[in-house]
């Protein structure tokens, strides 16, 4: 909230720097409003739009220095005003924005084309991870007192890309900006048409004043049936939604601004939609007493996917609950009754008979462990992640000291690189690292002096952790089986285990957005590499 205000103040400051002589008077029907007042009004209007839209927005000057950014930008990219305003765009967030594709857009494409939509950029940010962004860019001659400014609207489509590629088709390309004489109006206009989400402006009587192109596209309405109409009358009175009435008539007059207001409605043209609305009420804009800006985000697909996921999650929960209860009970019976047989019929059984019973019981134990491991594995995939800074060196040292306590006969030297840090969930990363170190300790060669090492190297420009041993190794031919559930590369008689450990490790690392792989040679040891987000 504090940040928001600060941003807003700076923005207002920047906007009001505009020399009044540069602002061409806006032609209005009444013509009795002074030019200066009109410019201020338009500025306020522009500023409100910038703040209302949900997607991150950057305003740059001709030298690609940031003039202004909205609060959504700060939130999304976890940066603050001080390090942003006045900075060269490529220098943002510790030079993280020095992205070749962004350079191409700003330096080659934009100077030639003036505007560019749906420019896709994929980038790995240290703070917030891999992001796929769609950029809409506009170059405007003369605005905000600058010779040339560049508007950059950023939409984070990472999640959407990952879970639902099809959704994008529902939104069409934005139109080319309508050139107007009034540069401030052009600025506002540009913002409206740059944003990808439907945007609508209403006057105090709730009649439509202005609508973004995306609104027409999304709600399948025509400009002639929209502008000047009462919002509730749009599309054959389809917009007469009780919750919308409540927002516009009760909530907004009191609060002036409202975010993330959820409305669900069945439209005859486009079907059931769940929308999140951001609303702003602005005094005096566009020659009107009062303007209400409504930004609409369609979250139908996301909500549906969320509901589906929740259901799948519940089913899985019920399944593992049942596994935990029902699969273990008969095992206890098998073990108990074979022990009863051994105890009560000892005299009638010969040595071999008794051995067979021992076999039955040890198999039961293995089955019990498999069930427990499987349950733990599925639980690890479901627990919520709480990412924070991790001291990987300290974590490895504590795992190793526990490992040594539990295996007093372990003949191995451990080397841990000091000062290793990463970003991740403590509990999960600890499980992963423990599994890797346990694994290294398990496969030490019986002949030579065992050395197990945990450290970090640079691999293809990424800081990469490794756990290395000089033990028995494995044949790389079977490396693809390494991380499969219940996959084992060694005979159980030589190296016991259920084959869950490395599958767990892989799931944990991939949940953290990292990757894991191994390099090994038979009898020459194995090295497991994994990446995590870097600590900031």
């Amino acid at each position, binding site marked *: 909230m504090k940040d928001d205000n600060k941003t807003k103040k700076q923005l207002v400051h920047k906007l009001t720097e505009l020399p009044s002589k540069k602002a061409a008077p806006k032609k209005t029907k009444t013509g009795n409003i002074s030019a200066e007042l009109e410019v201020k009004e338009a500025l306020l209007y522009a500023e409100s739009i910038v703040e209302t839209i949900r997607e991150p927005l950057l305003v740059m000057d001709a030298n690609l220095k940031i003039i202004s950014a909205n609060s959504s930008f700060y939130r999304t990219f976890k940066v603050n005003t001080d390090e942003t305003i006045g900075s060269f765009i490529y220098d943002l967030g510790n030079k993280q924005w020095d992205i070749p594709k962004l350079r191409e857009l700003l330096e080659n494409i934009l100077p030639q084309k003036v505007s560019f939509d749906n420019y896709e950029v994929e980038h790995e940010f240290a703070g917030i991870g891999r992001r796929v962004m769609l950029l809409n860019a506009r170059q405007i001659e003369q605005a905000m007192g600058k010779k040339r400014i560049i508007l950059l609207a950023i939409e984070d489509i990472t999640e959407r890309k990952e879970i639902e590629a099809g959704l994008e088709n529902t939104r069409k390309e934005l139109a080319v900006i309508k050139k107007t004489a009034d540069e401030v109006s052009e600025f506002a206009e540009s913002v409206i048409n740059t944003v990808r989400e439907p945007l609508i402006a209403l006057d105090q009587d709730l009649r439509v004043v202005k609508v973004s192109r995306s609104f027409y596209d999304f709600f399948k309405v025509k400009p002639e049936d929209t502008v000047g109409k009462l919002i509730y009358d749009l599309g054959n009175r389809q917009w007469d939604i009780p919750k919308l009435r409540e927002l516009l008539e009760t909530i907004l007059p009191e609060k002036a601004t409202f975010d993330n207001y959820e409305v669900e409605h069945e439209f005859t043209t486009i079907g059931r939609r769940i929308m999140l609305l951001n609303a702003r009420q602005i005094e005096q804009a566009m020659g009107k007493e009062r303007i209400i800006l409504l930004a609409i985000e369609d979250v139908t697909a996301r909500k549906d996917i969320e509901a589906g996921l929740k259901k799948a999650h519940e089913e899985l929960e019920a399944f593992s609950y049942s596994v935990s209860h029902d699969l273990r*009970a008969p095992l206890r019976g098998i073990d108990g009754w074979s022990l009863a047989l051994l105890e009560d019929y000892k005299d009638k059984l010969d040595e071999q008979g008794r051995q067979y019973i021992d076999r039955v019981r040890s198999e039961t134990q293995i089955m019990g462990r498999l069930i427990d491991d499987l349950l733990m594995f599925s639980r690890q995939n479901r627990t919520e992640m709480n990412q924070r800074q991790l001291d990987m060196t300290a974590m490895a040292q504590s795992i190793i000291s526990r490992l040594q306590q539990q295996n007093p006969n372990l003949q191995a030297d451990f080397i841990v690189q000091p000062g290793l840090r990463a970003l991740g969930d403590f509990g999960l990363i600890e499980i992963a690292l423990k599994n890797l170190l346990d694994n290294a300790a398990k496969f030490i060669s019986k002949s030579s002096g065992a050395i197990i090492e945990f450290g970090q190297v640079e691999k293809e420009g990424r800081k990469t952790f490794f756990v290395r041993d000089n033990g028995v190794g494995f044949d790389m031919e079977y490396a693809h089986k390494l991380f499969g559930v219940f996959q084992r590369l060694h005979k159980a008689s030589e190296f016991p285990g259920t084959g869950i450990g490395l599958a767990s490790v892989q799931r944990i690392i991939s949940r953290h957005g990292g990757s894991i792989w191994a390099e090994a040679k038979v009898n020459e040891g194995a090295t497991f590499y994994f990446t995590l987000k870097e600590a900031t």
Partner: protein
Amino acid sequence: MNSKHILLVEDNPSDVQLTKRALEQNQITNKLVVAEDGREALDYLFATGQYAGRDVRDLPSVILLDLKLPKIDGLGVLKEIRANAQTRLLPVVVLTSSDQEQDLIASYNLGANSYIRKPVDFHQFTEAVRNLGMYWLLLNEPPPVGK
């Protein structure tokens, strides 16, 4: 009045037999009453249904309660026991296959005195039953009846 018996609420006959065996092996000779579902357990405790006419003051020293039960599940039984003045102080030990965190939390929230996960290994199970018997039948002073 109190016969120092055990109420075992368990629907799996194999588990019932094995529990009996474990008790015998540990020379715990106290009477074992078995209820095969939650309804039967509550009927026994409150002298209703098939146990109508039973002396309600004759309460077990400890209840060994499975969670997954027909009709009324273990948590439902526990809730009833704690809601009733006659039985609310009774020691209840949850004895179950589950090690699910939500079961642990729910059991303790409803006032379970102890929670034991039945081990697959029968030796360990016998040991657990021995400890249970020692603690709840010998060491522990049960709450006064009807208070």
